[in-house]
């Protein structure tokens, strides 16, 4: 009960601060938000900025894409992570993703969408004019998605926010208090995800300098990966450090659902049923396959056996790395990014982690942080203007793009790293971070929820 009360207090504070700030902003008139990342994903003819008009085909695709990205969290990620957790921690691991999706779903409606995608304020944050979706109705269409109902765009973006937070949990499981995790969700979503989403996609300063991030390399994966690393360091090591997957059939199931849903994530980021969506789709599938195979081969050589977990991990690594690049690179770029994404995260996980000694339970940093960085930088190299005129990489005569990508990555790493650390300090003070050692040994399913995954 105590942690519950703490949680509720924090929640009200965040909420009222947000609303006050909003009241303040709504007074001023803001220029319409800049054409941004996703607009760049539209074909050339769209550049003439036609009046927003609903297209049933685009709408059909984006409704489904939104549902697909939702599926990535529950049950996709919940299964992928839940199956990798020890048997006695699997439900708690699934609950972390589940509760995060629910909390973010509400906060996104309350203030997340407005502060991320409201009219830009100084390149830093969105305005408060859309708090609680004020002014949005069934006929509204956003400037950022000119052919679909704004309602769909709101939920589409919501699903990205939710999974980003949930991804970080992979580094914290098997020891973190459930109440601490909920508090983390509220704070990190509010103070880390929202601003970065605004910077890159909402017309903020990273959008203005031209950083390319098709579907979320920086906003989602680097961001979550850094939070994972910092959090794992502050939380400290688990009592039993082994990775002892409770149920690998769930992991394969989760990986499959993630792959499926990721088509909504990446191809959906074209915000239309068009050729860019097609390019993002084929690049996603190709890079994922390349990464799964290359992870498996490296593992076969390095550890003597090809594992199913390796195939699944490689696939996720490939999905992560192709995310920022999906709508910008050509098929050769996708193959190269995919191959790199099967090899570099493998070594991050197998070599770097033991050396640095942090305890990132499910390698959220090794796969999302490293894979996301890889993808963001390689986008700066391989972005092919004949695929998408909105992006031109080093290989196509624009070395500046690589620098821009570096800046975007650096900014995200710094901001996410520092604010995550502060948030962990606050949580430690308010409800505490870790469960008791005995509760950890007994398992978090029993100690946090009073449940067991299986009565077999």
């Amino acid at each position, binding site marked *: 009960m105590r942690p519950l009360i703490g949680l509720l207090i924090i929640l009200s504070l965040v909420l009222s601060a947000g609303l006050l700030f909003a009241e303040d902003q709504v007074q001023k008139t803001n220029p319409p938000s800049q054409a941004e990342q996703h607009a760049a994903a539209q074909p050339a003819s769209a550049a003439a900025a036609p009046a927003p008009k609903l297209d049933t085909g685009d709408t059909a695709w984006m409704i489904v894409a939104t549902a697909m990205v939702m599926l990535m969290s529950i049950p996709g990620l919940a299964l992928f992570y839940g199956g990798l957790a020890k048997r006695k921690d699997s439900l708690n691991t699934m609950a972390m993703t589940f509760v995060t999706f629910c909390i973010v779903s509400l906060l996104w409606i309350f203030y997340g969408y407005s502060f991320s995608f409201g009219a830009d304020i100084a390149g830093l944050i969105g305005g408060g004019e859309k708090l609680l979706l004020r002014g949005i109705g069934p006929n509204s269409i956003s400037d950022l998605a000119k052919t679909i109902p704004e309602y769909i765009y709101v939920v589409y973006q919501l699903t990205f926010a939710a999974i980003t937070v949930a991804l970080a949990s992979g580094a914290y499981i098997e020891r973190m208090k459930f109440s601490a995790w909920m508090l983390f969700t509220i704070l990190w979503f509010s103070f880390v995800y929202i601003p970065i989403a605004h910077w890159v996609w909402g017309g903020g300063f990273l959008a203005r300098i031209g950083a390319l991030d098709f579907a979320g390399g920086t906003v989602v994966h680097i961001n979550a990966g850094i939070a994972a690393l910092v959090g794992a360091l502050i939380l400290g090591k688990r009592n039993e450090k*082994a*990775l*002892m*997957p409770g149920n690998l059939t769930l992991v394969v199931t989760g990986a499959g659902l993630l792959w499926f849903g990721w088509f909504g994530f990446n191809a959906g980021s074209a915000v239309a049923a068009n050729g860019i969506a097609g390019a993002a789709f084929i690049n996603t599938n190709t890079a994922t396959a390349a990464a799964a195979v290359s992870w498996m081969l490296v*593992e076969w050589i*390095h*550890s*003597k*056996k090809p*594992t199913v*977990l*390796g195939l699944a*991990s490689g696939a996720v690594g490939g999905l992560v790395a192709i995310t920022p690049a999906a709508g910008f690179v050509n098929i050769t770029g996708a193959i190269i990014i995919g191959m790199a994404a099967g090899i570099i995260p*493998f*070594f991050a*996980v*197998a*070599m770097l*982690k*033991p050396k640095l000694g942090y305890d990132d339970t499910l*390698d959220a940093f*090794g796969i999302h942080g490293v894979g996301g960085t890889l993808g963001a930088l390689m986008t700066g190299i391989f972005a092919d203007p004949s695929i998408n005129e909105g992006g031109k990489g080093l290989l196509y005569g624009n070395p500046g793009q690589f620098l821009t990508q570096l800046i975007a990555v650096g900014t995200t790493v710094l901001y996410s790293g520092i604010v995550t650390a502060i948030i962990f300090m606050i949580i430690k003070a308010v409800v505490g971070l870790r469960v008791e050692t005995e509760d950890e040994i007994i398992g978090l399913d029993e100690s946090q929820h009073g449940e067991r995954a299986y009565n077999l």
Partner: protein
Amino acid sequence: MKKIEAIIKPFKLDEVKDALNSIGVQGMTVTEVKGFGRQKGHVELYRGAEYDVSFVPKIKIEAVVPDNMADKTVSLIESRAKTGKIGDGKIFVSSVAQVVRIRTGETGESAI
């Protein structure tokens, strides 16, 4: 009567069971157990990192036999469960004071 308790490698179960049946030991009870011993579990490699699994999956066979069958049973299990490699397991023999067959109420050797 004697209780023969054998801890063996799981993949030897069928062979041992068939052998016991062949000498008239019809009844036995089998449990899945975790063995700790000289055979040191194994190393699992997940994502390139090594994790010690300290136990080895084993099968425990329990069979209660008349005293005069005990030696034969033991040596049969020994010969069939043997691979010559570490971790082949152990056989323990102890006394049983009484046996009852629930269905019929028979007791003693006739109940086995």
